[in-house]
């Protein structure tokens, strides 16, 4: 694990990304519980700025919320109910397992002027996850939402407590600048560790390549769902993982200690793509089953467009929910 001496914002956050996601607000698709006044509706109704609805008075209700105007017109007792706006707690869970070290973009620099970690010669998936997280953190802090971070492999490796302070972004990027390790992913264990320290409902960005057993993913998401958290699954993939466009036989070395296998790439390609497609479909199906968002990001491209697409979709859902 390499500590970075100084982190520059532009190393992981390209200006063009900011311009692409700036118009969007980070809105929780589900109503989340916040402790700070913010842009997001609170599930706790009562003293708040925005009127929500009337309901009939029942003995025991506080009389201070009676709407006397209605009582005067109708001689019936109604209570005023308000929608409380609150802050959104956002927690970035970034996969730092060995598989995230893969990257085929044969450049030190990533998209939009970003730079990869110093220990690698290519722009890895982890670099891209870091860039994505930096963008998300920046957006959240702009909305004065509290944001926290945890990096994980087979367990939580490091984390940053939730905060909406100005220095929070730098703390998050500092943690993310640490290189991933060789361990494999254990989402179930990580989810248990994370959920044990989060009491209020929050929005989790699970940023990973999800190159693990879908059963494990299902079990982990079930735990989040059980705690009534919202989860956005952001899958970071390298283009070659998707296309598998190798033309020769080569030894493939597993980054999580799986060993080496010699593969005739051309002949295995079709089967690999089938397996990959099946895996992807399974993950999406799991996410959809729990009602979570799922977004894929290509490490060879800017993170802006997919994040913008994600936010747009979430806003649309939020509006639909508010009308309903």
């Amino acid at each position, binding site marked *: 694990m390499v500590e970075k001496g100084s982190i520059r914002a532009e190393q992981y956050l390209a200006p063009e990304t900011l311009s692409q996601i700036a118009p969007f607000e980070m809105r929780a698709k589900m109503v989340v519980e916040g402790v700070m006044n913010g842009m997001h509706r609170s599930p706790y109704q009562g003293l708040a700025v925005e009127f929500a609805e009337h309901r009939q008075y029942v003995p025991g209700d506080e009389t201070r919320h009676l709407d006397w105007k209605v009582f005067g017109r109708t001689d019936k007792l109604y209570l005023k109910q308000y929608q409380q706006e609150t802050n959104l707690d956002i927690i970035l869970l970034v996969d730092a397992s*060995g*598989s*995230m*070290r*893969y990257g085929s973009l044969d450049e030190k620099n990533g998209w939009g002027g970003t730079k990869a970690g110093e220990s690698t010669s290519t722009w890895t*998936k982890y670099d891209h996850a870091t860039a994505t997280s930096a963008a998300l953190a920046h957006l959240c802090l702009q909305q004065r939402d509290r944001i926290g971070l945890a990096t994980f492999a087979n367990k939580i490796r490091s984390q940053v407590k939730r905060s909406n302070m100005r220095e929070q972004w730098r703390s998050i990027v500092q943690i993310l600048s640490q290189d991933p390790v060789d361990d494999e992913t254990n989402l179930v264990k990580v989810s248990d560790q994370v959920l044990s320290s989060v009491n209020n409902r929050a929005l989790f960005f699970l940023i990973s*390549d999800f*190159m*693990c*057993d879908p059963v494990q993913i299902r079990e982990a998401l079930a735990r989040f769902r059980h705690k009534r958290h919202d989860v956005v699954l952001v*899958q970071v*993939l*390298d*283009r070659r*993982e*998707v*296309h*598998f*466009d*190798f033309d*020769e*036989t*080569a*030894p*493939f*070395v*597993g*980054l*999580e200690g*799986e060993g*080496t*296998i010699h*593969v005739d790439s*051309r*002949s*295995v*390609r*079709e*089967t*690999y*793509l*089938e*397996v*990959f*497609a099946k*895996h*992807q479909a399974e993950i*999406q199906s799991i996410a959809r089953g729990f009602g979570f968002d799922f*977004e*894929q*990001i*290509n490490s060879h*491209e800017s993170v802006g*467009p*997919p994040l913008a697409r994600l936010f747009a979709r979430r806003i649309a859902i939020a509006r639909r929910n508010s009308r309903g």
Partner: protein
Amino acid sequence: MTFVTAWIAVAGLAAISIPILVHLLFRRRRKPVDWGAMRLLMEAVRRHRRRARVEQLLLLCIRCLVLLLLGLALAEPIIAGLRSMGGGSRLVVLIIDDGLVSGIQNPSGVSELQSSVDAALQLVDGLDSGDRVAVILTAYPPHLITDGPTINIDAASRLIKDLQPGASRSDLNGALSLAEGVVQEHAGSSPTTITLLGSWRQGALLGSGRSTTPDQESLTASAGDRPVRMLATSPTSEPATVIVISDVSMRRPVDAVRGEQPQVRTTVTLRRLGTDLVASRSLVRLDGPGLENTLPRQVEWTPGRSEAVVEFVSRSSAVNSAVDGTSVITAHVDSTSLPDLSRRSMLVDTSNTIKVGIIDRQIFASSNDLENIQSAEWMERALEPGNEGAVEVERIDPASISSRILRGFDALVLARPDLVGDNEWDLIKKFTDTGGFLLVVPPTQVQAHTWLDRMGSSLDIAWNIRVEPINPDEPVDLAVDQPGGSFLSLLDSEIDQLSSPVQVFRRLDVDVDQGDGRVLLTSSDDAPFLIGWEPDAERRGTIAMLTSAPHLEWTNLPIKPLMVPLMQELIREGTSTSRGSVEILAGERPLISMSSARELGGPSEKSIPIDQDGLVSEPVRRNGHWVVRDSSGTALSTIVVNSEITAGDPGITSPDALRARLGVDAGWTLLGTDELPDQFSRDEPNPVWSLFMLTSVLLLLVLETVLNRWFARSRVSGTSTSAPSLGGLR
């Protein structure tokens, strides 16, 4: 296998290394790929293996089928060819009978050998390039005319085309032995066939050497346990009659007069061989020096008559044309059926004077008492009865024997061997080795004949003779029936009559069973009276020995009529035999004992060298009159070559008899000459079958290509058709 240009083969081999070097030099070491989605890749590899196994198995089956059908299509012509032989390049050993009887001509004048030659040419034409052929001729001695098995079919054809009937007998067994050797040495893994080509008349099947022909089992063993086909042409069924001169003999007067042309009677014996002896006429003539004016004689052959004798009377004047005192007379009959037997030659002694030296002490006083006349004197009287005889006699004192003195004599009569010392024995030995005739007479003056041991060791003759003579109780007559022959052939008709009055009173005791010479005259108790040793490989001259001295104390021979002709003929025939002029049979290799002999000049221009040991370097295959010459070309002696009469027997052999001759179970297959070439021609390939297979190959190749590309396309270009387009990933 040989390469025409070996360096091209070497260059070709060297060129093989180029692609290997290129491969090695340009072989890239694959850089390992660190891979994140290893779980998916391992799963894909597992699945792919299952699918690839099925695909590759299908492609493997198609490719194997392509190769199989392609191989069958291409191999069809080869298989068809091999169907008749059972293998690859073939070894064909042709044994062509070119023996004497193969020269029998049909009415149109074509020899039977020519039929065999035609069949052989057809057979050879049917061979393929790569096949090897060896041609063996049966005429004694059998020999290979090709340089071992040769792949040069054209050269073999030319050799076969030029074949002429030989003058010697057929030696089928020898030829088969030769073939066995060829098979053993050269068959290797080649399918082998031995083919006998001939008309197989009786004369061609005379046995000699091996008692049985090699059978298929032994030939198969010789060929490394590969089966050997054994084919033979069926014997001819065409009857033939051959008129041959079976003998030419000359009778000259015993009492030839010095300087006169003797009147000689030449008897020519003719025989008709064959079964179809119809009435015909033959004309016989005699050729030879001094016989130019001899008129031809006509022979009337009545039906069934098989022998005729014609006698010519002439005066020989052949001195000028004689070589070492001999000339050649040749009898001809105007039969063309077998040319080599329609003439026969013989050697004739045409020398006028024979010089004889009698080794005994010189006695200047002659005794009138018959009892006291010594052996030498009796010999002188017998050899030189008058002053004008053809024999000149001179006394040689034993003490004066020298090589210079002996060189002037044609014959020696050793009357006092007891007086001859070791050195003189060596000189006498040298005299006989160089062609002199020696007659040994027991001395009457000694009781113990110790000289016998010295004679035996000096002259290399082996007779067990006791030192002390024996005196039979009663005088022993000479036998009525004498062996005769050889030196005494001229006396054959009278020898019995002449010898009967002769009695033996004393003689040397000879062990008949242990000698190596021939008994020429014998007494009635079977004791040898005259022994002769003819020339052999070691000695050119002739030796004879009387076991009883021509002395009246030993025998009454000196006063009997036999004495003069016996001594005359002994000396004449002995010297003639010793001269080196000989008669041999065609195919033999005579041993020339004259050390200066260098070559044998034949009827044609070709001459045969004579090696240092006196052996003619190759067999004398042509009949006629050959002359031994020294290095300057001077004629030294004459060799007359005739054919063996029995070898010309035109009798028909039945197929069963031929099978029996070749061996009933030997594995020979008899075929007609017209059937033989079919046994060697390759079967023509079936074009329809080959076309079908080639078409199938093409279709399978197309199928393989399509499947291969389909499998490959689904593997390689899968991204363009089925790569996930999830999340905008491109």
